[in-house]
């Protein structure tokens, strides 16, 4: 093809598809390339898509039968030891009004659905015959001329564009190829997400988790579930299945010589989890690397002459304790990348200076604001106290306070004091509490 596109997007995940929808609306001519058989075929997440941006891309998405699995009405954060679970639990009809604040998704289905929405958007766009979504194509090389990105090469074919958006996901080989990230990214701030999808009779699932209609639950776990490895667990309700898994630090697994899949087996057998999974049937096993939200792992820059990096390819993700936000970061960064391309097209300038608008827009958005603001929380979550001592201490406190003995009862303060003494010292707990109160 001789003709030049306004933009080429590499990757049919949430970042790439979101960028494409905005580009189609803005009247740009683009090519989106996906290496999988269909958009979503290579994609894995936990996964809850938080925030409201989906309603911007697909207005009234909640009226559709397909797409998301359930919306989040019920949230639970659970601290675990070997026997126990101590939870903070919040359920509210406040979450029932669309646009929902969070929806559970299964990426193979969700991304495919979003790609179908993209096709509809292209069909309604000013250039319906000049934008394309091409699957089963592996981009092997980012084409550069005089230091600026001018296109892509797939096999023997070269395609040119004013701007290339790299939305290739966390294993960002092309971002590394153009020198925005080192060829080797160390394991220090990288995690492995590992999960199973467990099918369950829909009625059983709704009764067991007290769900009504399309309401759903998200439950995160910290403590015994990760067997001393930094990270934690999750359980999300789909329509007729559960997504259950762990996110574990790769460096910590290496140093502790543990198998992530063995830890997942143990997690499923924990009495609290086993009760939730009973009579379910495993239907898929999956894993994918995910970044931790530590900004030290981000590419040197997220734009250069003729190129923008969006989503997990730029390690845009945060987990500051309240939610793992990766997909909403992908969505917003894709949207902002597309807006940058449209503005650059109006200016006729695709230089790095012009594309620096993308960096500024991200800095002004919740993405980089939160990432900057919560770096200390990200690091706190990776403090061994957080996934070992604290959950054990709190579960032990729960066991003591909720056990009714036919004997004189201690005052709560005394129980707390004794529990703390058995697990740590007042001094180290106070230090940790101070850090926690400042960072979270």
């Amino acid at each position, binding site marked *: 093809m001789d003709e030049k596109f306004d933009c080429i997007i590499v990757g049919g995940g949430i970042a790439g598809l979101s960028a494409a929808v905005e580009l189609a609306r803005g009247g740009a001519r683009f090519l989106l390339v996906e*290496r*999988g058989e269909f958009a979503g075929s290579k994609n894995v997440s936990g996964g809850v898509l938080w925030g409201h941006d989906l309603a911007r891309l697909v207005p009234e998405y909640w009226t559709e039968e397909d797409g998301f699995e359930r919306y989040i009405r019920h949230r639970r954060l659970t601290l675990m030891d070997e026997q126990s679970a101590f939870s903070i639990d919040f359920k509210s009809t406040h979450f029932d009004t669309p646009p929902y604040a969070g929806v559970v998704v299964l990426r193979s289905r969700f*991304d495919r659905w979003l790609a179908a929405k993209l096709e509809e958007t292209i069909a309604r766009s000013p250039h319906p015959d000049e934008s394309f979504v091409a699957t089963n194509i592996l981009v092997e090389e980012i084409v550069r001329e005089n230091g600026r990105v001018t296109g892509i090469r797939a096999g023997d074919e070269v395609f040119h564009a004013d701007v290339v958006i790299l939305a290739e996901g966390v294993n960002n080989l092309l971002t590394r190829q153009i020198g925005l990230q080192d060829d080797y990214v160390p394991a220090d701030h990288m995690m492995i997400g590992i999960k199973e999808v467990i099918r369950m009779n829909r009625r059983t699932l709704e009764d067991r988790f007290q769900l009504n209609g399309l309401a759903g639950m998200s439950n995160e776990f910290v403590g015994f579930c990760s067997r001393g490895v930094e990270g934690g667990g999750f359980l999300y309700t789909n329509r007729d299945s559960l997504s259950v898994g762990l996110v574990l630090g790769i460096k910590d697994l290496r140093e502790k010589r543990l198998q992530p899949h063995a830890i997942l087996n143990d997690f499923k057998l924990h009495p609290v989890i086993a009760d939730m999974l009973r009579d379910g049937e495993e239907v898929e096993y999956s894993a994918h690397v995910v970044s931790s939200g530590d900004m030290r792992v981000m590419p040197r820059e997220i734009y250069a002459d003729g190129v923008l990096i969006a989503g997990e390819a730029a390690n845009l993700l945060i987990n500051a304790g309240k939610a793992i936000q990766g997909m909403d970061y992908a969505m917003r960064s894709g949207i902002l990348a597309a807006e940058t391309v449209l503005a650059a097209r109006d200016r006729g300038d695709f230089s790095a200076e012009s594309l620096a608008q993308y960096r500024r827009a991200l800095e002004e958005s919740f993405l980089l604001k939160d990432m900057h603001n919560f770096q200390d929380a990200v690091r706190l979550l990776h403090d061994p106290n957080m996934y070992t001592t604290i959950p054990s201490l709190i579960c032990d406190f729960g066991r003591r306070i909720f056990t009714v003995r036919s004997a004189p009862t201690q005052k709560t303060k005394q129980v707390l004091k004794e529990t703390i003494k058995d697990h740590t010292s007042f001094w180290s707990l106070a230090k940790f509490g101070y850090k926690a109160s400042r960072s979270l």
Partner: protein
Amino acid sequence: MKKLSTAERLGLVAYRNQGRSEAKPHILVDTSICNSVCPHHCTTYVCPAECYKFDEDGRVFFQFEDCIECGTCMYACDQGAVTWSYPDPESGRGVTWNFG
């Protein structure tokens, strides 16, 4: 629920054209590094598809066929033994998630 073996788990994974004879591996592993200087052989336990194994003589070998393209080995290996590319869709397009 009971513990699942890795073989049982991988039986739940859909692959496209992975078994083709002309399929090229998308990960190149320099096992001479694994079997000389590497102090931990971490790929043999962090890989969730157990693509890295020890043979009878205790030497690390790699087989790509079960790979679910998660990327863990490219970060875990700090010895420079693991080089990634993505599978070429033409000759073994690899994992295709049903749920994802």
